[in-house]
């Protein structure tokens, strides 16, 4: 029993996500009188699953970067939406107006994005200008600059080559049998890789005589994760295959999870957010960490810009507005502390999926768009209240 409550409290947001998913499934199946999960309109229906990934890809990327900023001490970056618009504009000039090579353009765009981030990072880290102010200024400057450069008009269409880079599927055919087959093979391969690494790590621990996770727990965990992977692969295989975007998201999430959980600078981020003075006196270069967090945010906003531009096939003057709030919201719903030092990339991803599911579920149900905002706002507040309360209770104990 104790173990169950512990699991629930540790993975509260995951449980809530599953509950919300079930909630919408039941509502939708009642409304359309279709079978649960498999019916038309279900969130887990192949086309919807594909859309969920396409519509929320940018949030996952931005939330990952935002988490680094929040970890440093509850600092946020308000400028990411504007960076998406401005970098999008640059990509439009390069690829649409000047017909530059897409790969070169992407590289240049990411460099520009990183520089935009570094400009703010310098003021924040080395001159100690409060991040809120610095990035608020960035938000105004970058968006304004984009509008001036674009003359307030969108830029399109993008070259086929660029669009395909982000919007195509694996495998790139229309034969339904081949699509399902390849998708399942990829799913199985990922599962196999997961199982092999688990076994390797277990064997190595055993050899060195370190403490190991209990075997049943490990088996259950692995089976559940593999089942989810296979289910997603199967459903995607019934549609168009595995989106290239999903691979990109997977890579971003994997790299930053590894960075935060397994590397020395990642550990420093947590230490600094937990107690900046103690971290500094332990030899952590807190200025450098701060500089990294905000520069990196610029870089990831650049990737999000590419994804966003490819999705709409247009460098838009509006697609980007409010993105910073999606990212910040995802982090907090995903369990990041508003004071810094606590939170995981996985949590931020769950937060992003949570908002995605909420959006899509409410759209399918035909909820009034303004009411959707009310619900999302309340959910965000509830998540942070939960975080603060659970912490104050711990202190009292």
């Amino acid at each position, binding site marked *: 029993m104790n173990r169950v409550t512990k699991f629930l409290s540790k993975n509260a947001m995951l449980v809530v996500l599953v509950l919300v998913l079930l909630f919408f499934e039941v509502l939708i199946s009642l409304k359309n009188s279709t079978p649960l999960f498999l019916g038309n309109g279900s969130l887990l229906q192949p086309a919807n699953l594909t859309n969920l990934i396409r519509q929320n890809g940018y949030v996952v990327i931005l939330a990952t970067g935002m988490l680094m900023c929040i970890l440093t001490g509850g600092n946020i970056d308000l400028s990411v939406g504007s960076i998406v618009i401005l970098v999008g504009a640059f990509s439009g000039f390069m690829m649409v107006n000047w017909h530059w090579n897409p790969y070169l353009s992407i590289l240049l765009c990411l460099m520009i994005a990183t520089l935009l981030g570094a400009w703010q990072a310098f003021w924040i880290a080395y001159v100690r200008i409060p991040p809120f102010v610095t990035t608020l200024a960035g938000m105004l400057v970058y968006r304004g600059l984009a509008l001036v450069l674009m003359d307030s008009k969108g830029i399109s269409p993008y070259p086929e080559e660029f669009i395909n880079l982000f919007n195509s599927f694996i495998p790139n055919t229309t034969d339904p049998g081949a699509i399902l087959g390849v998708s399942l093979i990829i799913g199985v391969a990922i599962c196999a890789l997961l199982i092999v690494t688990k076994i390797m790590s277990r064997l*190595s*621990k055993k050899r*060195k005589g*370190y*403490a190991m996770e209990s075997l049943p727990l490990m088996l259950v965990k692995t089976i559940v994760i593999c089942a989810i992977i296979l289910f997603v692969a199967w459903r995607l295989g019934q549609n168009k295959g595995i989106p290239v975007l999903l691979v990109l998201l997977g890579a971003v999430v994997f790299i930053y999870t590894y960075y935060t959980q*397994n*590397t*020395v*600078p990642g*550990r*420093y981020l*947590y*230490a600094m957010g*937990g*107690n900046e*003075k*103690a*971290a*500094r*006196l*332990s*030899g*952590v*270069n807190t200025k450098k960490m701060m500089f990294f967090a905000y520069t990196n945010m610029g870089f990831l906003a650049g990737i999000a810009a590419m994804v966003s531009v490819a999705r709409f096939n247009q460098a838009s003057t509006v697609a980007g507005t409010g993105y910073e709030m999606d990212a910040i919201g995802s982090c907090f719903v995903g369990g990041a*502390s508003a004071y810094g*030092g*606590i939170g995981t990339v996985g949590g931020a991803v769950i937060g992003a999926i949570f908002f995605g599911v909420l959006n899509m579920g409410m759209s399918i149900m035909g909820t009034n768009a303004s009411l959707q905002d009310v619900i999302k706002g309340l959910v965000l507040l509830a998540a942070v209240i939960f975080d603060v309360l659970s912490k104050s209770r*711990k*202190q009292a*104990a």
Partner: protein
Amino acid sequence: MGEPLLRMEGITKLFPGAKALDNVTFSVLPGEIHALVGENGAGKSTLMNVLSGIYPFGSYEGEIFYEGEACRFGRIKDSEKKGIVIIHQELALVPYMTIGENMFLGNEQGGAARINWDATYNKAAEYLKIVGLSESPHTLIKDIGVGKQQLVEIAKALAKNVRLLILDEPTASLNEDDSQNLLKLLLKFKSEGMTSILISHKLHEVEQVADSITILRDGATIETLVKGRDDITEPRIIKGMVGREISDRYPKRESNIGGVTLEVKDWTVYHPLYIGRKVCDKVNISVRKGEVVGISGLMGAGRTELAMSVFGGSYGADISGELFLNGKPIQLKSIRSAIANKLAYVTEDRKNDGLVLSQTLRVNTTLANLQRTSRFGWIIDKDQEVRFGGEYKERLGVKAASIEQHADNLSGGNQQKLLLAKWMFAEPDILILDEPTRGIDVGAKYEIYNIINELVAQEKSVLLISSDMPELLGMCDRIYIMNEGKIVGELSREEASQEVIMAAILQSSKGA
């Protein structure tokens, strides 16, 4: 003798793990200046906090009688209503507000909806005149010196119709002229019938103005000396303050002292904010292999500042002087380089500067030297980290359920041990321990003394900063005495005694 204005009876105040006040009795006669003296941690400030309601009724035992009436203060406002006003050592003024605004902060003139600024500034000017401060009430606090700020605090107290004025170390940061002014002001108030309680380390000042002196030691009242009845000279007061026997509260060790490991020469450090204020002034100290060297001094003597400025310049501005490690000159430009050169500074403030309380024992243990448990210098080997975490937890006897427990759930003594574990994990040769036993119980203290002995047995050098004099006498091979940023004495274990140390500090304060 008349009825006392204030009588505190049987006051006992417990803090987690420590008894700050133990059945203290304290009474003040109307119209006198009553000095309260004792070493750091003797309980002076705690007693005054009980009196002023900072520690509300119910959080302590005992009774307070004021003008013969039992008082139960729930908060500071309650005691201020009775005319009891306390001026703390750290001034509570807002730098970017004017003198007038500060003087009536929390006591605003006019109604709730509108502050009457004319009344505020006119009254402020009156009170400034009384305390003899010739500044406009429109001047910002940040633009006047500490001495004048102290006078503003007093004027602020007067504005609250003070009848019993409590001054906690009012002259600690003042120069001799300003101090004398302040004492004259106190005498003037006394002639006008006001009662005051003066907490001070500067015994010559106490001798000069006090009518009676109450001595606290280890949270208990030792005696009250009355002018004209008892001898109230400095040596007599010192005897009361330190007169206690040292039993075997300190584990024995065989000293095996080697060559000089750390040497600091002509070390001068300026305050990072107040330009031109010297915090350390041409300090020369050295530590040898296998030696425990103490630095004694009062709070604010510059001991922590000295240690931190040596530790990679983590404090202060315009640091000058020379550092030698094992005889070789060296410059430690950053904390990282200090750690790399096998130095460790174990802070006095474990909660704010030492531990990441929201993290686990494991994370805290390895933080200062993560490279030791990493591959290629930046990928943490978590399995090894878990093993190290357990090993150091055992070695230092940190009592916790597991290494995955969060540091904020540990008791003070265990947090202190964890902090030591963290710095021992960094494998230093020279450890600077700043107040390592502050606020922890006797048992945990003893364990920490054992750890110190173990460290020097491994030929490490320990620099021990402590305000607990018996601890320094019990643990150190050699003791430096620091006062007002300067080293004012150096004593061997044999020469050192509390009286000698106290006398050296007071001697140098007098000269200033």
